[in-house]
Structure formats: C-alpha cells, structure tokens
C-alpha cells in the first residue's frame, strides 16, 4: 500500500505538500471506508442473489416488486432496517449488546484487506497473508458469543454457545486444509499463492496434488461451518433457537450481523479460490484476460452459488453430529492430507508430475462416484417401496 500511496502522490504532484504520515493515514481511512462500503454492497447483491436462487430452487418467483425484476428489493430492505428501532432488551448488558455487531463486522471485514484480487489490486500485500486472514476471520466468534451473552435471552445464549463451540472446532480442519496448500506452495502470501498457480488450469493446486484436492473438500465443508450456513447453521437454527445469538437484535444491528455473514462468505470463498482454484488466474497460460479480478470474482461467485444451493437443499445437522463430523472425520482426514502434501513437497519434478496425474484420477473418481450415486438413487422408492 505504501508503494501505491507513493505512486498516487507522485501522480498528483503533491509529494512535497503533504507530510507522508498524514497522507498515509488519510489514505488508510479512505481505503477502510471503501472496504466497508464494498462490504455493504456485496451483502446487498448477495441477499438478492440468494433470494433469487432460492426462489428458483423452490419454484417461486422471488422478489419482483421493487425495481426491474426486484433488483432494488434489498435496497428497500436496507432503508427499512436503517429506520427501524434498535431494541435493547430489558436487563441486557447494554455495552456488550452494542459492541457485539461491530466486533462481528470487524472480524468479517479485516481479512478483506489481505486478499489479492489481481496481480495489481491488493490493499495490504502481507507476507503472512493467509495467517492474517485466518486469525482475523475468527475474531467474529467473540462478537457472536458477546451477542449471545449480552442479550439476556436463553435462546441467544444457547446460540452464542453453539457458535463458539462450532467455530472453534471447525477452525482446526480449516487451518489444516489451508496448511496443506501452504506446504506445497511454500508461501503465506496470497499474492504469491496466486502467482504459484500461473500457467493454466492444470497448475491450480486442486489439480496438482490429490492431497490438495482432499484438503479442498475439507476446506469447503469447514468453511460452510465457519460462516454458519446450512447444514451447519446451528448457531441461528431458526426452528430450534428462534434466531440464535441475534434473536434480540433489530434494525441496523441485525443487518450488520447479516452483512457480516455475507462478507464472511466472500472471504472464505476468496481464500478457497486463492488456495485451490488458481487465485486470479484465468485458467489459460499467460496473463489473465480482461484482468485477474474478473476471474477472481467469477470463481467466488461460483462457490457462493454452491453455498446457496447447499443451503436450500440440505437440512441441518444435530450438534453432536456436527462435532463428530469435525473431530472424527475432518481432522484426521486433514492431517492425512497435510502429511501427503508434505511428502509431495519434497518430491522432484517427476514426482510432481505423477502427483498431478493422481490428482486428476482422484478428481475423476470423485465425479464418477457422485454421478453413479445420483443415478442409482434418483427416483427410487426408499426402503424397498412405498406402494407395497
């Protein structure tokens, strides 16, 4: 960013007029505001997209009143939420209650800074980018626990506890899956991670190592849990806990929780793209066409669509099933993937080529299995026939 600042000032011819520290601070604030506004815009778009996609899955029309095809529905919703009263429950811990949404929002927004949207667009080109993203993304759980505790509501408390338990558990397979790729790439810098995957789709980590492929599946699963989406939406399980930790929130504070969820989705998917799906690379050798950020956003959109799709197809897991899935399946599998990836990192060029073939085989096998499973179970009466 310092580099960017200097070029900017030089372009304006103002490097001698404004002292460096002041200019830098102003620019930082501008960037932060920009990030926050982008977050809100992303949330607006995502809410609409989610409603439209869910309407498609559920054979409904979806929002279609405000603006052409309902495009301004979420804008109207945002205006409504801004003007709504912020209710504070009686005997609630008011300070914690006020702070919680802000903290959750901060936790969701901070990781955005380190994400490399293209080979030029990156707010903070950190050499420990991945570590920073993982660390800041898990800040939100404190806010959720605070919200659950401060609301003076038993449902909120249960939701907050669930959020804490779930997120801390799923941090582990999440981080292990990330580590598998870090070992292969040898860098924590998100920009360098993307650069390491240049040269075509076969250079993406998910297709370069069978272990990265397994790690990718683990990451995608545990990232669903990280952002509280079905089938892991236990902290806000609507039919059980009313609304979980944000039961007692209304108006813009509730909206901030919602916005955080969608920004969180963008962040986990952005990290997934950077780690496994080639970052800002277009999939063809050479420079990405039309600029890397378009490809990056496109890939994020595909992953987001999958998350929405999963949400409207699957029911919710139970808390014990959620925990056993994490600790008994994902964590051991993650360690295996990490071990495999570490071994692969030591191999020479021939070994890497063998691993690449293995990755494609694993990928092909996985897709075939899915296909066969779907063909076998489609339109088959369960349990040996209903009609008797």
């Amino acid at each position: 960013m310092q580099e960017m600042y200097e070029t900017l000032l030089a372009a304006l011819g103002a490097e001698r007029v404004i002292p460096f520290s002041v200019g830098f601070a102003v620019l930082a604030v501008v960037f932060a505001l920009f990030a926050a506004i982008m977050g809100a815009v992303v949330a607006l778009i995502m809410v609409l997209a989610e409603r439209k996609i869910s309407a498609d899955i559920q054979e409904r029309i979806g929002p279609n009143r405000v603006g052409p095809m309902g495009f301004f529905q979420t804008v109207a919703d945002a205006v409504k939420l801004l003007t709504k009263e912020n209710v504070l429950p009686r005997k609630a811990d008011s300070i914690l209650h006020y702070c919680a949404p802000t903290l959750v929002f901060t936790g969701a927004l901070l990781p955005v800074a380190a994400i490399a949207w293209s080979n030029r667009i990156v707010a903070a080109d950190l050499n420990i980018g991945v570590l920073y993203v993982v660390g800041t993304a898990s800040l939100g759980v404190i806010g959720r626990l605070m919200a659950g505790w401060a609301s003076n509501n038993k449902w909120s408390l249960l939701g907050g506890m669930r959020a804490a338990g779930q997120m801390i558990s799923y941090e582990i397979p999440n981080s292990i899956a990330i580590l598998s790729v870090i070992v292969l790439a040898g860098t924590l810098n998100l920009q360098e991670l993307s650069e390491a995957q240049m040269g075509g789709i076969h250079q993406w980590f998910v297709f370069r190592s069978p272990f990265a492929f397994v790690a990718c599946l683990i990451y995608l699963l545990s990232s669903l849990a990280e952002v509280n989406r079905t089938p892991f939406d236990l902290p806000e399980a609507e039919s059980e806990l009313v609304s979980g930790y944000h039961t007692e929130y209304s108006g813009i504070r509730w909206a901030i929780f919602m916005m955080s969820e969608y920004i969180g989705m963008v962040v986990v998917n952005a990290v997934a793209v950077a780690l496994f799906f080639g970052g800002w690379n277009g999939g063809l050798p050479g420079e990405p066409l039309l600029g890397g950020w378009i490809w990056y956003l496109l890939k994020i959109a595909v992953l987001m669509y999958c998350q929405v799709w999963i949400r409207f197809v699957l029911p919710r897991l139970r808390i014990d099933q959620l925990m056993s899935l994490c600790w008994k399946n994902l964590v051991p599998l993650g360690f295996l993937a990490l071990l495999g990836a570490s071994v692969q990192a030591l191999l020479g060029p021939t070994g890497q080529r063998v691993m690449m073939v293995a990755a494609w085989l694993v990928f092909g096998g996985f897709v075939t299995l899915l296909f066969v499973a779907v063909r076998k179970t489609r339109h088959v009466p369960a349990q040996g026939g209903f009609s008797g």
Partner: protein
Amino acid sequence: MPLKTEEMLLNVGPQHPSTHGVLRLEVTTDGELVTSAEPTIGYLHRCFEKYAETLTYQQIIPYTDRLDYLSSMNNNFGFVVAVEKLMGIHVCERAERIRVIMAELNRIASHLMFIGSFSNDLGAMTPFLWCFRDREEILKIFEEVSGARLLYNYYRIGGLAADLTPGIEEKIYSFLNQFEAHMLELDDLFTRNAIVIARLKGVGMIPREMAIAYGLSGPMLRASGVDWDCRRDEPYSIYASLRFEVPVGGEKLGALGDCYARYLVRRAEIDQSVSLVRQCLADIPPGDVKEQVKRNVRPPVGEVYVRTENPRGEIGFYLRSDGSTKPSRVKVRAPSFCNMSVFSRISKDILVADMIAILGSVDIVLGEIDR
C-alpha cells in the same frame, strides 16, 4: 473443585417458530440436553363442545371445520357419519364417493403440510415450498367444489353441500399425475437424504406397547407397528369396497416407532390416498348429492360414538340426542390431543434439536388439541 451447574428452564412457545401454533413447552435443559419437556395447552380453547349444544346439527358442521383446520373435510366427514348413524340415514353412492375423494385429497394436503413443516423443523426449507406448491393445487380443487380454501363446510347430514363442478374430474386426474412425479422428486430431495435419516433414525422411539398404552392413533400408532386403521378395520362410508393398504412401520418402513418411521408412514399414506382417489373417480354413479333430509334434523333420543380416520388419527364424535334439533352433549376425541400425551414421555434426555424433531413428527394441530 467440581463445577456447579444448574438446569435452565426454557420456555418454548407459545410464540416460537416450530411449535406449530400456540403450544407452550416448559423445557428444562442441561446445556443442549433436554431433561424434561412438559406441554402446556389451552391457548386456543374455544369451547367448541359446549357451544355445539346451542347449535342445530347442520350448524355444527362449520365448527368441526375449525377443529383440525388442516383436514376440515375429514372432520366434516366424521361428524356427518355420526349423525347419520344416529338417525339411520342412507346416503347415495355418488355422495359417498365424492366424500371419500374429498377426504382423501384432504388427507394428502394435510400430510403435505406435515412433510413441509417437519422438514422446516429439520432446517430444510425447500421441501416446505415444494409441498405447498402441490397443496395449493388441492386447495384450488376444494375451492372450486366448496367455495373455500381452508374451512370447507362441504359435507351435509345426508349428502353434500354441492355437487362436483363440471370438468373437475379431469382437473383432479391431471393434478394426481403431476403430483406423483413431484413426490418422486421429494423422495430424492428429502426422504432419502442422508442428513434427514441421520437426524431421524432412532429418535423419539415409541415401542408398540407404549403406543397402545397412550392411546395413540393414526400414523403415530402405525409407525410403532400396530396394524390398525379405522377405514379398514371398522369401515364407514364406502371404504369397505375400496382396495388400499395400511402402511405400518417396521420391516419395510424404517425402524419401529422412531421419527423416521412416522415420517415414512405418512409418506406412504399419501400414495395410498392417491390410489383411493383414483378408484373413487373411476366410476362415480349419477345421483343427487343434495341432502334428502330437512335442514333442522331431529335425531331420535339416544347416543352414538363414531370414530373415523383423520390424517392425524382417529377422530371420535360422541353425540347424545334428546330428540330436539340440538344435541344435548357433544364430545370430540381429538387425535392430536391423545398423540401429544406421549410427547413428554419420549422427550427426556435428548438434545434440543431432537425435541423439535419429535414435536414435528407428532404432527399436532392446536385447533384440535384445545378445541
């Protein structure tokens, strides 16, 4: 030092997304574990039974609509069958066939509502809307024949309020064809969903003896392996002349008496109802379905108890007549009320999520519990 823990008293309802109406559960929890759950009912009490004593027999019919408001046709059916038995009236074949068609369509609609709300309780939103899409078609058919979408008031003592509208048979046929394809899709989405099975298998077990001891009926009873259906074992109307199977939990339909078996039994009953509607539609004889009795009937002095098979179980009507135009006593045996009695017994030492699943699988309607 041992950590001091305390049980938490949790109030589920009367306003809660998954209590299916104004039910209140007093739940004591130990963290995520439910140690006891006591239902509190009465928020929807309307004095139906007492009020019915001030109404003539035909006037009571719209009030029976409001018992189990998801299966109004079936409630009407039970009540008119009771009065007809008291009076010894024979109803013409055409009216009986239309009655069975409407009752079975209403059973499908009611079970669709069950699947929808049950899936919603489990956190799946799409089955809910898919079920409502099909239920809507049934409601359109009902609206066409009876003029109402929810509270039909369609049956009359000795007949029906109105005959079928012209062309409705084709509409029912085309609905059924489309519906069967939709049900296969629903099976793909929900019935064989691994998470659904993991959530429901072995949850809320009701053994056969417990089911009988608590007086359960309908799908709740059959899921526990008791082969009993009023339509077959104590036939009323024309059910004796129709071919259908009674789905029973156990070997074929899930384990004995768990939530999944209760779901599967209802799911299988939908298929049976489709077959029943087709059989009745196949040959509807001509005739006058309008009631052949006076509007103010005067049943002879005496009493009668008739039970019929509602989507939720046996609905029983006890009527006592003193020879006047109004009954001197009306008592309803509501299936949801009896089915709910077992709830607190099986909701011990389970997780909160299981409690919601069990409550969903009981499939209560508060309008009937509180009356």
